[in-house]
C-alpha cells in the first residue's frame, strides 16, 4: 500500500505543472481566445472532466450559452440527485481565531470579545436546530486550538450523534491522527477551503498565523481522506483571485481527490465575499457577477455529474431560489454565523447572512419549486469508527 502511495503524484506538483498555482498569462490567454465552436464542442461532450472542456465552459465565449449550460446542468442534477435538496445548518462553536485574514470578521486584529460555547451551550444550540428539523449539522470554528480541541469536538460529536445523522466540520486544518480521532467520534464530513490556489495572492491575504502555510492547507483534504472522511468539501473564497483560474484549480483538485479517495464524495461550495464587521470590501479586486457565478457552477456540474454542490446563506433569497433549480444539491437555511446565535446571543458573526428566512420558509420555497427538502440523508451507523 505504501508503495502505491509513494507512486501517487503529489497534488502541489500537479497544480504547479498545469500552471494553476500562480498567475498564468498563457492560460488566461487560452481562456480569452476560446471560440463559440469550442464552447459548442464542450457542451456536446458527454459528462466528465477534462481541463480543455472546463476552459471552454468558463470562458467569456461561453457567456452567451449560459441558458444552455444551465439547462444541461439541471438535467444532470435531476438525473443524478433527483428532485431533492438536502438541508443543513452551521453551528459556530467559537469565533476566536489566531489568524489575521483581512476578509474575515474573526481575524485576530478585530477588537472584540471572543465567544466560545461549552459543550452544554453547543448542545443547546443544536437542540434548537434539531427542533427545526435539521439532521445534518456543520460545526464551524476559527483557528482556536486551545479551546476547540480534538477532545472537545469528539465529546461534542458524541452528544450530537444522539440527535443528528451526519456531522461535518469546517475548522482549522489538523494532522491525520487528529482527523482519525474526529472520524472515530462520529464526524463524517469536512469542508476546508483553500481560499485561493494562487500562491502569491495567498501570501498577500495570509501574512501571519498558521494559515500562512499554503501547502499544509492544500494537503488537508488528503489527510482527511486518509482518515476515512466520507465527504470532502472544496472551495475558494470568491473575490481574492481571478475566478476563472481558481475554478480550473478547484476542478484539478477535485479530480485528483476523486481518483485518490474513490470512496469519498467531493462537494463544491461557492463562498462569495460578504460584508463583515471590520472588513474593508475595497481590497477585493475580483468580485464576480451573479451570471459569472452561475456560469462557474453550471460549468462544474457539466464536468462533475456526481459532486455535491452546496450553497449557503451568504447569497440572497432570490438568487438562492433561482440557483437551487439549476444544480444545487445541498443548502443551509436559517443560519447564524456567530457562536450562540440560535439562542439569540449577540456575539460577533463571521459574515452577514443574506438570506435570513427560517428553515421552514426555505423548505416551503423548495416545495413550491417542485423539490423535496431532505433533512436526513445519512446515518450515523455508517461511521465505522465506533
Amino acid at each position, binding site marked *: 500500500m505504501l508503495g502505491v502511495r509513494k507512486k501517487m503524484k503529489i497534488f502541489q506538483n500537479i497544480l504547479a505543472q498545469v500552471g494553476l498555482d500562480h498567475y498564468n498569462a498563457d492560460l488566461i490567454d487560452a481562456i480569452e481566445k476560446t471560440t463559440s465552436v469550442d464552447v459548442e464542442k464542450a457542451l456536446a461532450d458527454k459528462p466528465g472532466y477534462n481541463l480543455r472542456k472546463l476552459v471552454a465552459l468558463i470562458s467569456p465565449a461561453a457567456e452567451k450559452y449560459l441558458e444552455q449550460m444551465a439547462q444541461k446542468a439541471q438535467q444532470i442534477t435531476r438525473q*443524478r440527485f*433527483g428532485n431533492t435538496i438536502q438541508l443543513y445548518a452551521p453551528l459556530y462553536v467559537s469565533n476566536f481565531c489566531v489568524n489575521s485574514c483581512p476578509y474575515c470578521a474573526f481575524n485576530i486584529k478585530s477588537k472584540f470579545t471572543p465567544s466560545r460555547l461549552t459543550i452544554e451551550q453547543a448542545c443547546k444550540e443544536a437542540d434548537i436546530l434539531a427542533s427545526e428539523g435539521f439532521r445534518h449539522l456543520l460545526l464551524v470554528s476559527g483557528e482556536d486550538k486551545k479551546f476547540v480541541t480534538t477532545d472537545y469536538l469528539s465529546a461534542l460529536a458524541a452528544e450530537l450523534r444522539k440527535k443528528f445523522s451526519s456531522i461535518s466540520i469546517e475548522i482549522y486544518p489538523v494532522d491525520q491522527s487528529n482527523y482519525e480521532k474526529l472520524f472515530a467520534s462520529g464526524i463524517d464530513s469536512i469542508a476546508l477551503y483553500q481560499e485561493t490556489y494562487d500562491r502569491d495572492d495567498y501570501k498577500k491575504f495570509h501574512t501571519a498565523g498558521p494559515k500562512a502555510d499554503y501547502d499544509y492547507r492544500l494537503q488537508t483534504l488528503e489527510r482527511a481522506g486518509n482518515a476515512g472522511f*466520507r465527504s470532502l468539501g472544496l472551495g475558494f473564497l470568491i473575490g481574492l483571485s481571478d475566478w476563472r483560474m481558481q475554478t480550473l484549480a478547484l476542478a484539478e483538485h477535485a479530480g485528483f481527490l476523486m481518483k485518490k479517495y*474513490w*470512496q*469519498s*464524495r467531493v462537494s463544491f461550495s461557492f463562498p462569495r465575499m460578504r460584508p463583515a464587521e471590520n472588513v474593508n470590501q475595497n481590497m477585493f479586486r475580483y468580485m464576480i457577477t451573479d451570471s459569472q457565478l452561475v456560469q462557474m457552477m453550471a460549468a462544474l456540474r457539466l464536468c462533475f455529474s456526481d459532486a455535491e454542490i452546496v450553497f449557503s446563506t451568504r447569497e440572497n433569497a432570490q438568487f438562492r431560489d433561482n440557483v437551487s433549480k439549476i444544480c444545487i444539491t445541498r443548502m443551509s437555511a436559517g443560519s447564524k454565523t456567530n457562536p450562540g446565535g440560535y439562542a439569540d446571543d449577540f456575539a460577533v458573526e463571521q459574515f452577514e447572512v443574506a438570506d435570513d428566512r427560517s428553515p421552514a420558509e426555505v423548505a416551503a420555497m423548495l416545495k413550491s419549486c417542485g423539490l423535496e427538502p431532505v433533512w*436526513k440523508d445519512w446515518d450515523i451507523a*455508517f461511521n*465505522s469508527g465506533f
Partner: protein
Amino acid sequence: MNDKLIIAGKEFDSRLFIGTGKFASNKIMADAIEASGTQMVTVALRRVDIENPNDNMLAAIDRKKYLLLPNTSGARNADEAVRLARLARAATGITWLKLEVTPDPYYLLPDPVETLKAAEILVKEGFVVLPYINADPVLAKKLQDAGVATVMPLASPIGSNQGLKTKSAIEIIIAQATVPVIVDAGLGMPSHAAEAMEMGADAVLVNTAIAAAKNPVQMADAFKKAVQAGRQAFLAGGAEVKQQADASSPLTGFLRE
C-alpha cells in the same frame, strides 16, 4: 393463470418493485407507487428515521398495501451494512433487507467481496437478504449458496437509465438461478423493463426512471404495463429470432424432390 412470484415464501402478483429516492414530493412518490401496482417498495435506511412512524417518507407509504424493503444504500463495506441492518431490525422487527454495499459514491457500483461477506453474516442471523450485485454469474451463484432470497443484478450503472447493458451476463444468471432474479438499476424506459422480463427475469426494480420523469405517475403506470407485457411474452414463448431470412427459392430444394 397462477403466475405468482414467490420470494422467501411470500407471494407477489406484481413483478415491479419501486425505489423511493429522488421524488419531488412524498405525495408524488405515493401516487407513483399506487400507479405502478407494486407490492414492495425499497427505502434507504439513511434517508428515513426508521424508528419513527411519523417520518414523512414512511408515513406516505401504506404499509398494509406495500411490503417495506429497507436498503443499506451508502454502506461502504460489510461492517457498515451489517451494523445498519441490525439497528433497523432491532428498531422495527423488519427482517427483509436489500443489501447494498457501494464503496464508490459516484457510480455506486456494488462491491462483490463485501456484499458476499455481509450476505453470509446476515443470512445466518435470519435476515431475508436481497443483494444488489453487478451482473456477475459466479457471484450470483456464491450468494445463492450463502442462502440469499433473490439476486439483483444491475442492468447498467444505477440512475444511468442506459438499459440492459449487461444482458449477456444476466442471461447466464437467469439460466443458473435457483432463486428469483430481479433486474435492478439502470432501466431507463418501460421498453428496457419489458426486455428484461422477456428474457425471463422474475421481476425488475425501478426508481430514477420514474422519479425523475416529467410525469412520474404516468411513467409508473407505463412501467407496470411494460412489466406485465414482458412477463406475458416470456410465458407465451417468443418465436425464435432468426439471423437470416428464409429464402423463397431454396438452393437445396432439389434434394427433396
